[in-house]
């Protein structure tokens, strides 16, 4: 199961992911034409002033998703196979219960329709638009186990070096 994974140490704060996200969620799906549509983004490059860092924050599609659990109308559902938390705007009543329980604060408010908007992981794309747009690959689309495996390997290597050096 693929996720959008964030490697915050690589984020340059360019906000290309935000632009790509907004354009992908426009009707025209074209940057120039989208200007007249004013589409909204669903992920946020947050600034952490204490560390002068930019960190992309986006829906984690939590396996035990609080937003799904609290949604009173069933507008939020979770796909059993992909784990994607979907939002049905026709059923949404804009009560913001989901927003009030979301750990990451990534449920936005549609300016015109007055319903929730959130990451749908770009169902029509092989790779989500934000991931494709990231010039430094701070966002990757992959399996969490693979990422963990790579991290374990890197840590193991470091440890092994230390062991070898102390022999």
């Amino acid at each position, binding site marked *: 199961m693929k996720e959008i994974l964030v490697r915050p140490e690589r984020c340059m704060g*360019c*906000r*290309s992911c*935000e*632009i*790509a996200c*907004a*354009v992908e969620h426009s009707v025209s799906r074209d*940057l*120039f034409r*989208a*200007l007249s549509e*004013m*589409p*909204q*983004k669903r992920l946020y490059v947050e600034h952490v002033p204490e560390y002068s860092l930019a960190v992309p924050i986006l829906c984690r599609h939590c396996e035990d998703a609080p937003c799904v659990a609290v949604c009173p109308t069933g507008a939020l559902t979770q796909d059993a196979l992909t784990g994607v938390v979907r939002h049905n705007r026709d059923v949404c009543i804009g009560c913001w219960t989901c927003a009030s329980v979301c750990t990451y604060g990534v449920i936005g408010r549609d300016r015109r329709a007055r319903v929730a908007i959130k990451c749908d992981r770009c169902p029509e794309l092989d790779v989500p638009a934000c991931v*494709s*747009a990231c*010039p430094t690959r701070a966002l990757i689309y992959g399996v969490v186990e693979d990422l963990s495996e790579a991290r374990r390997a890197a840590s193991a290597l470091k440890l092994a070096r230390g062991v070898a050096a102390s022999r």
Partner: protein
Amino acid sequence: MANKPATESIDPATTKMLLEARRAGLETAWDRFNKQQPQCGFGLLGICCRNCNMGPCRIDPFGEGPDKGVCGATADIIVARNLLRMIAAGAAAHADHARDAVIVFKEASEGRARSYQIRDEAKLRALAAEYNISSWGEGGGAADLANALLSDFGRQQGSVMLTHRAPEKRQRIWEKLGIIPRGIDREIVECMHRTNMGVDNDPLHILLQGLRTSIADGWGASMIATEVQDILFGTPSPKRSEANLGVLREDEVNIIVHGHEPILSEMIVEAASDPEMIRLAEKLGAKGINVAGICCTGNEVLMRHGIPVAGNFLQQELAVITGAVEAMVVDVQCVMPSLGSLAACYHTKFISTSPKAEFPGALRMEFSEERAAEMAREIVRTAVENYRNRDKSRVIIPREKSECMVGFSVEAILNALGGSPQPLIDAVVNGSIKGIAAVVGCNNPKVQHDSGHINLVRELIRNNVLVVTTGCNAIACAKAGLLRPEAAAEAGDGLRGVCESLGVPPVLHMGSCVDISRILVVAAAIANRLGVDISDLPVAGAAPEWMSEKAVSIGAYVVASGVYTVLGTVPPVLGSPVVTRILTKDLGDAVGATFAVEPDPFKAARLIIEHIESRRKGLGLKV
């Protein structure tokens, strides 16, 4: 994201060489373009500013994030300032090119640059008369003219001299808007000043300076470059040649001249025909020395000497990949810095010659006016001696090349018309020629190579629009066979009749990018004959595959001159509704012409034809 080679170009020679590049694992501009995808949305919309170190700043085009930079600049201000800087850079490139030509002319007229002579005495005298130079002693007139031309660059007051060539009505419009350029360098400097932090912050006010600077380019710098190069190297006249990578020869030493200035390439053409050099080539097993051009240096030697042209902008890397190029000799502008590492994969010597332009991996053979002929011989000798190092097993020269007829300077066009523009005007009036379109500009991997150029030009001539061309569009047309008189068969009946009676192609190659100034002169002549302004004429401009900042300056002076212009790639301005409105609408009220953007060449042709028809109606001509 990666395109297949077949969709990267409509030119079969290019497609073939791209397959070879892939096979050999070599990277080209198309690969790098793909790696850049998706390109930055802020940059595409023109809403990032790096003009001061409080930034970089950018505006959220969708209204959620910042709507002003740190200084308070809005998207409108940022876009206008960035556009003005693009115009300044483009005008600077033409101005610096022109200055170099004038300096060579000055050195030659004072007897220091002995490699150069006056080739067009009549043009020298005519230009001197325009600059009010009456004394004509022993070489004195030429030197005085050179000094007068130089003073146009540094002039602080008054107006750039050749703006007087514009029709009276046009000059009044410029005067009313306060956009008659004072001095070429002054306007460029003022652009940089105005866009400095905290100076000019009104989009319209900024853009008017853009027009003024661009006029200093079109009716100043570029026009001076054309005039002086004609005086030094001869005014082009019709001649036949060939175009595309197929002009490279398997059994000869191939030297490519690439860039924009004819100052050194003229000398290289001469040195390559030196019997001593040819003997040396033959001693090393080659059958001769073949000089071919790329980009506008190519157009300059093509127009004046019929030197074949190997390709346009996006083919520069492919020329090296043929494995048959002994030397790629470059001067300035549009030279890809990738050429050094690419040439290192072959025996090709990548030789940089301009004191201004250094490249990684280049062999430096710096040009000087005093030693021009010697330098050229040294370069040719280096190329010839390098023939020994050619790996014949790696040579792949595509077979494709097309015949072309080139060399249509204003003088040559008048000559073809029997000495007066009247027959052309008659043809426009009676409707056999519906109008005239100037189709110019670069290549850009955002557009399938040459398809923007060729589809637009074909569509226009089919509809009886005479096309005049320069730059990389001209080379695209040459490769597609549109510069042959026989191409008249592709034109509508009216245009076809005119071309056949004059023996000229339906697409007239008027030269390099600075030679767009020749097109301005033709437009002014026709307007004056009819007693109207340029903006009243059934004419239009187009740059279907533009990429360079020079093209931004050109587009601006063409529109400022009253010519409706259609761009094929989107300029970085759409992030500002105000700037977009000024360029596409308000300019119409101010200068009688606007910009339009239309990537589809067939729709662009429609826009141009509709514009031409509206102008015909305005002049009371039948549509």
